[in-house]
């Protein structure tokens, strides 16, 4: 993600200055250019581009909500993992660290195969062993398993982001909060996390964009996302160039837009000095 160098300079600006300098983010133009290119393609060459867009449109929605649901879960479980990594309780720290190390060491595609193919097999085996009818007939729901797979993997990465963010806040902040009688969780909630969140916004934004792109891997476990719909179009029409141009452009619109949103939030939440 392009890092705006103006931000570090603007630290010295006081809010009492009569007007904040207008700061237009030029990278919106790139997004506008990509959208213009899509519009151009579907109007000038409706066959096949308009057909492709119609064909993959339900996949756009699937990609969107698989990413969004996973990301919300990742934000929650990542925080739990991050606090676990920082815990003084050795068992919690051990569990969190083991989880992170294992997940980081296995490719996401293999993890997705595991959740979609291996887990149902294990559940059915367990059902057979304990004689449970419901478990023996268990059948995996692709989207459910895809979201579990993405969440499980990305929560590990996110817990590292949270950990780094929390550790970047000076120890004195926690001491000041505790010396005022706050509990650990009150101090985390009111003092440490509000500051850490500002620090980790850029890497969290990166995680979101990477997650959005990696969600294309769920196409291998029978989820009809944008990528899978593109491949289906290719198979049905024997066109190999156009569907991938269209799919690539659609991903690009989503990622460029996300990057702009992250930068915008960063600017909005910067500390006043």
């Amino acid at each position, binding site marked *: 993600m392009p890092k705006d160098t103006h931000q570090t300079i603007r630290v010295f600006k006081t809010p009492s200055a009569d007007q904040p300098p207008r700061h237009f983010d030029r990278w919106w133009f790139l997004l506008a250019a990509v959208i213009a290119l899509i519009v151009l393609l579907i109007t000038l060459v409706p066959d096949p581009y308009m057909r492709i867009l119609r064909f993959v449109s339900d996949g756009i929605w699937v990609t969107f909500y698989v990413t969004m649901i996973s990301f919300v879960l990742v934000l929650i479980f990542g925080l739990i993992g991050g606090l676990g990594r920082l815990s003084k309780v050795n068992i919690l720290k051990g569990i969190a660290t083991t989880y992170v190390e294992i997940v980081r060491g296995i490719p996401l595609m293999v993890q997705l195969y595991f959740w979609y193919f291996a887990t149902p097999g294990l559940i059915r085996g367990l059902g057979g062993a304990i004689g449970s009818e419901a478990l023996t007939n268990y059948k995996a729901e692709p989207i459910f398993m895809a979201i579990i797979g993405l969440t499980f993997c990305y929560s590990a990465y996110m817990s590292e982001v949270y950990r780094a963010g929390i550790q970047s806040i000076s120890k004195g902040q926690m001491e000041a909060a505790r*010396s005022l009688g706050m509990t650990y969780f009150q101090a985390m909630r009111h003092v440490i996390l509000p500051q850490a969140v500002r620090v980790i916004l850029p890497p969290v934004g990166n995680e979101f964009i990477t997650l959005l792109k990696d969600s294309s891997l769920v196409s291998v476990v029978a989820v009809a996302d944008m990528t899978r719909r593109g491949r289906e179009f290719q198979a049905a029409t024997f066109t190999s160039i156009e569907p991938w141009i269209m799919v690539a452009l659609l991903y690009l619109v989503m990622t460029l837009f996300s990057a702009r949103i992250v930068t915008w939030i960063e600017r909005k939440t910067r500390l006043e000095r």
Partner: protein
Amino acid sequence: MTPIIQIKDVHKHFGNVHALQGVSLDIEKGEVVVIIGPSGSGKSTLLRCINRLEEFDAGSIIVDGIPLDTAANINAVRTEVGMVFQQFNLFPHLSVMNNILLAQQVVRRRSKEEASRNAMMLLEKVGIPDKANAFPLQLSGGQQQRVAIARALAMNPKIMLFDEPTSALDPEMIQEVLDVMLDLAREGMTMVVVSHEMGFAKAAANRAILMDAGQIVEEAPPDILFTQPKQDRTKLFLSKIL
């Protein structure tokens, strides 16, 4: 009357360093005690043990009748003991007002109105009511430290701990912070101050204590300790800082 702070034979190790080597100290209610000593002598560590920011390995500390043992007791003591840090440690993401409101609302469960009234009164007292809506990093060091004092006072502590409150300040800002501390001392606040400000010690302290190598070397009223020290260690230290 039992002392409000009772420290008995406290030991503390940092790895191989024996930072506190059996320190015992009683402090009466309303007393102002100044602790001096070379860096690494354990004076800050001792202060931080009183509200258990630092765990100690052996010995006992009883504050206002509450022993520092269980987590609940430690929190109870912390609500009665205010602390001011060398680096101020204001919350940079909150305005001055919200810095002073936060713990009142979260810990003391005061209403916003009551907490705000209290906060404004304290900002008047430390002389910067006009900075209520400023953010900490917009203030000078002296102003930040005064806000930090107001924030601690907002909890209505019975004891105030000061950990080198003026050491990070530019010289011209030291007096404004010391003035606030002098006022507090005059009002009868129990204060434990780690500081080398001799002027403050002479004006406000009932007792001055010299620490070295994790032990209390000598204690006496400040004018006596500074002018007629008994121990050679004290003479040596004073000759270096005066």
